[in-house]
């Protein structure tokens, strides 16, 4: 097992502006097999310039790894302006100790990311596999898509300990997500597959849904006016009202299911 610790230097955050650093080049699969000197020379973007990782982060390496699966990256320091943590990662683990900026775990294919804080918008964007755990809150567009893409999350597993923003899981086509807190409006917008479970309160979930399912365990603040009540259904001994929709898409496409407690 190898642990690579990357601590953001305070100087990166000390200017008149807090220009974000973009670190999709720092994933276990890309850093596997690199010496400490090589690690420090990996390029990351800071605004419109590329910099050496070693110039922006304090780098330390402990232990050895036989494969990327055995590489764990620990990110420390103020990460609120560090974007694309674990973006596109394929294996291994990343632990972010604090709040992270946008696109954490975007395009992720495998491995595991644990965020010990809140994640800004677009975490898990177009995620294909692996596991993303956000212990705090997640922002808008969690597990949704890049502007104009017609597919959001297609696989993998996501757990959010706190609340989530608007339009989470837009165009979701597969995978599973569990929200332990509340969800802001339009969760599961344009969803065509996969499963969302919301433990807290939510409003206007599932608009333009054509497939997949949303299980609502908390309070429904407002339902969409275009879903049809079908029947009472029981899942794991709990009784739910089952709805079909979204009929705003027309009858042929209204194949999404809502289970409301």
């Amino acid at each position, binding site marked *: 097992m190898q642990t690579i610790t990357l601590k953001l230097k305070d100087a990166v955050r000390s200017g008149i502006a807090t220009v974000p650093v973009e670190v999709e080049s720092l994933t276990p699969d890309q850093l596997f097999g690199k010496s400490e000197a090589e690690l420090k020379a990996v390029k990351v973007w800071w605004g*419109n310039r590329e910099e050496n990782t070693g110039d922006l982060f304090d780098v330390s390496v402990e232990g050895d790894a036989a494969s990327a699966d055995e590489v764990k990256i620990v990110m420390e320091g103020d990460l609120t302006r560090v974007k694309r943590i674990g973006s596109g990662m394929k294996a291994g683990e990343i632990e972010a100790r604090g709040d992270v900026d*946008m696109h954490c775990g975007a395009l992720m294919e495998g491995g595991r990311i644990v965020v010990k804080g809140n994640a800004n918008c677009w975490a898990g964007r177009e995620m294909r596999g692996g596991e993303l755990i956000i212990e705090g809150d997640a922002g*808008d567009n969690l597990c949704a898509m890049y*502007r*104009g893409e017609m597919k959001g999350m297609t696989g993998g597993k996501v757990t959010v300990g706190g609340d989530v923003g*608007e339009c989470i899981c837009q165009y979701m086509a597969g995978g599973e997500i569990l929200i332990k807190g509340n969800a802001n409006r339009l969760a599961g917008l344009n969803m065509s597959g996969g499963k969302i479970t919301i433990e807290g309160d939510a409003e206007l979930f599932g608009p*333009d849904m054509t497939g997949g399912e949303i299980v609502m365990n908390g309070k429904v603040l407002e339902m969409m006016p*275009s879903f049809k009540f079908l029947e009472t259904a029981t899942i794991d001994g709990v009784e739910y009202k089952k709805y079909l929709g979204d009929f*705003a*898409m027309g009858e042929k496409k209204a194949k999404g299911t809502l289970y409301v407690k």
Partner: protein
Amino acid sequence: MVEITDVVCSLCGCVCDDIVLEVENNQVTKIKRGACSVGKSKLLGHERIKSPMIRENGELKECSYDEAIKKAAEILYKSRRPLLYGWSSTVCEADSAGIELAEDIGGVVDNTATVCHGPSVLAIQDVGIPSCTLGEIKNRADLIIYWGANPAQAHANHMKRYSYVSKGYWTAEGKKGKKLVVVDVRKTMTSKMADVFIQVEQGKDYQVFSALRAILRGHEDVVPDKVAGVPKAQLLEVANMVKEAKFGITFFGMGVTQAGARHNNIVNAIQFTRAAHLHGKWSIMPMRGHYNVTGFNQVCTWQTGFPFSVDLSRGYAWYNPGETSSTDLLYREDCDAALIIASDPGAHFPGAALRHLAKIPVIQIDPYANPTTEFADVVIPAAISGIECEGGVYRMDNIPIRLRKILDTDYYVPDEEIVERIHAEVRALREKEGE
């Protein structure tokens, strides 16, 4: 005294092109026909920025164009994340030069759509847009919906020239042969003229669109008795009007783009248009504000592939409003310099965004002083497009119209030339550093 006809108004997205005015001693002295009260005020002219200025020890000091342009180039060249914002009250030629500059310096380029109809542009990408020209509406439309828009006050010539009150080939009776529906959160001057006024609860337009779609698709049974404060009976009434119309149009304004579900309101409005298409011919169009806000979106799409909020910092176009939009960048304190042209964020941006803008170096290019001037560090006065210089603009229905030059200036420099001269200075700085 000279009378000039067919003058094009460079104020709002209507871009009226039938104005008649009088010029004497290189001054517009009288507007004879065509312009609305707001357009008149612009054409008659008002106080200008007199000279380029650079801020020294907190005070703006007059300087030459060359000095101001050099200073602007130094600020942009040094910047790690410059924002180039505005571009809506100038011509396409200036926009094109600005996008080229943004690409070269690795900046974020964005126009006023970001706090206006940007959500509409986003929605169009998601679901497309069935639209038409204002001329088609004038000649054909028999049902007009204004949703979250108040043209009677904001686009004063719109109804007269293009929609409810206009007379066209198949609409020779004018408003007698047409129906008007207004949807808004409160009564307005426009809603007073409407056959049906739907008063929606604040921020809940989204649900009303979904309910109308379900009804138009034959599923009125699933719609509850009241949606967002609107009785189902009224929704059925409007749905029936939609079904009976030969040619319908929805014009929508910032009451929908910047409230509640924002861009998803527009996705839903476009989907409503699609559902209405099952019954008749139907179109939809945003009520664009600045006279060339549409044009910037056109030019930016030619040059970068995306219409606004384009981040060029990594050498390719990354387009993600919410992340790359001006207000978000400033609110997050992401930018370390800004060039503001042909717009006034000082008056229109949220306080938290402005606080950061006031902290970083700001270059302003504008014919007029405005709240942005109060914190700008370099101020470069420009010739007024459509009055002192010509150029291409796009009307709200994406029709290109050429602005005319009606007055001479031997001092003020057009926006395009200012931007190109800044760019030339940036190149010179780079060459110098490369030596």
